[in-house]
């Protein structure tokens, strides 16, 4: 396998596998937020704010994987 092909393969694997975890994590967060909202619709402000904050934490992991993929394609 040529070096170019290996880099492309690595980039695809990096972002593909790296986005599985955060995807599931964001889904779990959304489910928790929906359940909390259903139980207590008045606490909407606090629930939404904390959900967005927690989603950003989970999203950051996917962004790390994306950075690795971008570096593999464009810099290495």
């Amino acid at each position, binding site marked *: 396998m040529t070096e170019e092909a290996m880099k492309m393969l690595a980039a695809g694997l990096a972002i593909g596998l790296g986005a599985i975890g955060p995807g599931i994590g964001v889904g779990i967060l959304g489910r928790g937020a929906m359940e909390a909202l259903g139980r207590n619709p008045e606490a909407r402000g606090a629930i939404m*704010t904390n959900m*967005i*904050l927690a989603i*950003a934490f989970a*999203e*950051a992991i996917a*962004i*790390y994987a*994306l*950075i690795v993929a*971008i*570096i593999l394609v*464009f*810099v290495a």
Partner: protein
Amino acid sequence: MPRIGCLGKIVIAALVFMVLMIIGAVFFRLPEMPHVELAAEEVFSVAGFAITNTMLAAWLTILVLGGVCYAATRRMKLVPTGLQNAVEAAVETMLNFVEDVAGKEYGRRFFPIIATIFLFVVANAWLGLVPGFSTIGVIRTGEEGEVLLPLMRGANTDINLPLALALVSCVFVEYWGIKVHGFFRYVRKFFNVSPLLRGTGQVLRGKIRSGVSAISTGIIDAFAGFIEAITEIARIMSFTFRLFGNMTAGELLLFVMVFLIPWVAAIPFYGLELFIGFVQALIFAGLTLVFVVIAVSTREEH
């Protein structure tokens, strides 16, 4: 002219959008894939110090923010109208958010830095979407032939700016922790060896059983303190890469969408980029606020 219902208007809009997409894809094709560079490109240098296009964009942001605030405070009225009204509403919303998280006592004191971080990041992100950023520039001849060097580029896509903001945020958190708790009490949280020393003292004095259990919990406490110190350092990298990654990926996404279907298909992605810029600014400022509230809070020892 017959009345067109709501659904009819949506269908017509979708058809017009598809026609425009087809026109763009047929007539306005770009000749080649846009040239993407992760590092910020230097526009000119002053006494050996390179001024990059992201630096120019950050200076423009500072001018815009300062200009808006200056214009809003000319001829201030007790009942605000116009620009003063809008700026006051924004400041009040941010102050309420900060005081909700930090409490009344600390809210006012944390507000300047938190609000500045938020406004700076969101203004950088949104100004980077103005048409002309990353498209207007000069032609430079590089190794791959002629390459466009953009004169302005969204400032958050340069890794140095998120890194600088992350360092500011880390210093801010540590400063407040030390200021409220005192230097030695704050550092002792990270080098938590007193339970371990107490256990060793107990063993040496002869109380073997309680001494050994105290030593084992002491080792765990010391290790936990060490992990907390590592977490503080890792937070800098986390902040940096979260902001840099989101903004660079957004810029790349816009480039690729405009390359694939020119002329209209990037419009929904512009909306996405506006939203993501706002959310990332909120995350950066909000997480800094949460960490500084944790650092100044007095936790009782177990």
